């Protein structure tokens, strides 16, 4: 039972409750940095670090944080981790940091992170909170990567900077410009909805068949 619950908290964020596709959270950084796969991965890793770190701290200190000022406390904890991530990226990969620009500090305003602290980490023991954060952050990374990969392949004809097509490929430039972000995410959400509807229909059919048999 215990084992099952831990695994459940870890896995749910990756597909069923995926923060982007199912809950539509954290859109701003999601669309702004996914014009290439490498930017998407860097953003995803930074968010991963911030989410796991702040979930760990918030759930460890959840009995010490006064209820009335909890949101402010969460934000200060998150902002601290974001500052660490910002300066680390600046020191380790300055070129990437320059490309992501103002969007690293803006992780602090990502509603996904604050949402997880409020809805989960402040109410659960440390171990579960960290597992939940790892799951959610992986789901977010996955979503960023899929969007970044699609946009880079269509808009630049490359993936992680490696050319995929021959010389004759005419890049679909609009995909790496802002409108492409909105359009790609819209189409991906459409597929996600379609898949969910089909699955629900299938489950209903199975249930109906079982009922008629019984």
């Amino acid at each position, binding site marked *: 039972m215990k084992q099952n619950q831990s695994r459940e908290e870890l896995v749910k964020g990756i597909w069923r409750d995926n923060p982007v596709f199912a809950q539509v959270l954290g859109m701003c950084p999601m669309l702004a940095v996914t014009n290439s796969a490498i930017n998407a991965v860097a953003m995803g890793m930074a968010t991963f670090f911030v989410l796991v770190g702040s979930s760990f701290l918030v759930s460890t200190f959840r009995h010490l944080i006064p209820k009335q000022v909890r949101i402010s406390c969460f934000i200060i904890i998150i902002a601290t981790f974001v500052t660490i991530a910002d300066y680390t990226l600046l020191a380790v990969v300055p070129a990437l940091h320059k490309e992501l620009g103002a969007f690293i500090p803006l992780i602090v305003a990502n509603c996904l992170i*604050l949402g997880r602290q409020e809805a989960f980490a402040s109410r659960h023991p440390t171990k579960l909170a960290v597992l939940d954060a790892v799951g959610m952050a992986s789901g977010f990374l996955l979503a960023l990567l899929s969007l970044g990969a699609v946009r880079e392949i269509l808009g630049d004809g490359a993936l992680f900077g490696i050319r995929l097509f021959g010389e004759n490929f005419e890049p679909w430039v609009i995909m790496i410009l802002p409108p492409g*972000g909105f359009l790609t995410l*819209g189409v991906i959400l459409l597929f996600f909805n379609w898949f969910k509807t089909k699955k629900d229909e299938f489950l209903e059919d199975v249930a109906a068949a079982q009922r008629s048999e019984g």
Partner: protein
Amino acid sequence: MDNLLWIFISALLVNNFVLAYFLGLCPFLGVSNSLETSARLGLATTFVMLVTAVCAWLLNTYVLVYAPYLRLICFIVVIASTVQFIEMLIKKLSPALFRAMGIFLPLITTNCAILGLAIFATNRGYGFWEGIVYALGAGIGFTLALVLLAGLREESELSDIPKLIQGTAMNLIIAGILSMAFMGFAGLFSHT
């Protein structure tokens, strides 16, 4: 003078916060189902942006020169508490104004468009008046995008749309087309 005008137009149309920088998308997608609500939210956001510009300028000039690593925490704490304070002030002084935009104020204090404004203005080294004009342009641009989307959404409620695409998927595609239209403004100024 030319410079101020350029900052205003750039924030309003060419580099629209929502449609070119993807900032403030949560209220953009969440609240844009009626024209009136989105106009009021836009007004409240513009107001908070002006407050933010003043706060950011004060912090940058008097505090952050001594401790640049506190930038993020300072911005958030100072902006959030100033907005909270002004909210109480408006509630006392003008109940009518409070009803028009009061309920939105706490919602938008930690919005990424607000924080983004403070960070962009800092990175570009804007002075006091430049910051104010930038905030004004960004706020009106945000309102413009919100009202445009709300109008389109109200219109789409009367049309026969497949059930699958209703909701966020369609809003994103509409936003994509709007964003493409706004790209047309990129040629408005010849210098980069």
